[in-house]
């Protein structure tokens, strides 16, 4: 049995910390892949062939995920800078994290719909 002492009982800040790490790591991994696929510009036909894959439904879903990760990391990063600059803001940290999540969803959902639009319209698959 897992000893209870190893379980984190972190609150909002702990989830924000974890979310920031995970999204940062994922965006970095995508960045590595993206630099490699863009380097194919050296061979225009190959670039266009590989690039067309990004229009695939599965990769579009992946792009929606990337967008959410990017948005969360961005707004949470702004929250961190804000708390550094105005330490008093820690008092409202739960509220601040809620704002981060709300902004991520409010921009991520319509953005996701735009990215998935060709599929929703039935032009894909």
């Amino acid at each position, binding site marked *: 049995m897992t000893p209870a002492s190893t379980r984190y009982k972190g609150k909002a800040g702990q989830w924000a910390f974890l979310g920031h*790490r995970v999204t*940062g*790591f994922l*965006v*970095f991994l995508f*960045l*590595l892949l993206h*630099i*490699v696929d*863009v*380097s194919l*510009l*050296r061979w*225009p036909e190959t*670039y*266009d062939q590989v*690039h*067309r894959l*990004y*229009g695939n439904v599965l990769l*579009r879903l992946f*792009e929606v995920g990337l*967008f959410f990760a*990017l948005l969360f990391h*961005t707004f949470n*990063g*702004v929250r*961190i*800078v804000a708390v*550094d600059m105005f330490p008093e803001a820690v008092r409202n940290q739960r509220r601040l994290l809620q704002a981060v999540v709300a902004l991520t969803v409010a921009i991520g959902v319509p*953005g996701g719909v*735009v*990215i998935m*639009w*060709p599929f929703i319209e039935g032009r894909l698959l």
Partner: protein
Amino acid sequence: MKTVEAPPPRPGGRSGRGRRKRSPEALSWAFMRLSGLALVFLALIHFSITHIVNDVVETDYDFVAERWHNPLWRLFDWALLVLALSHGLNGLRWIVDDYVRDPGRRKAVKGLLYGVTGVLVIVGTLTILAFPSRPR
């Protein structure tokens, strides 16, 4: 009138103005904030152009050629490349320090991280620089 004497120069400090010498980790902390704030604009504008304003399938070779006809967009993309990679590199360095406890293994993982990032800075920079200024 009371005179206040300047504090004695700190041992090892270069300036005698009593200013605290910043440690490399403090610089890394500040870099994360500054590069992060720049990336708010660079990354979100880049993503909006390539996925929201235009559909991803439209951003083919000709799209890039038209965009990179303007050197300012090349500069924009290069700034994004360098800042995103260094911001990510520093973040991963912190993650490695937290989770890879064995000194030898930590050194190896960091070496791999620096190597891969270094190669990609070069590949990305060459991609932007070597792209012809005239369409194919």
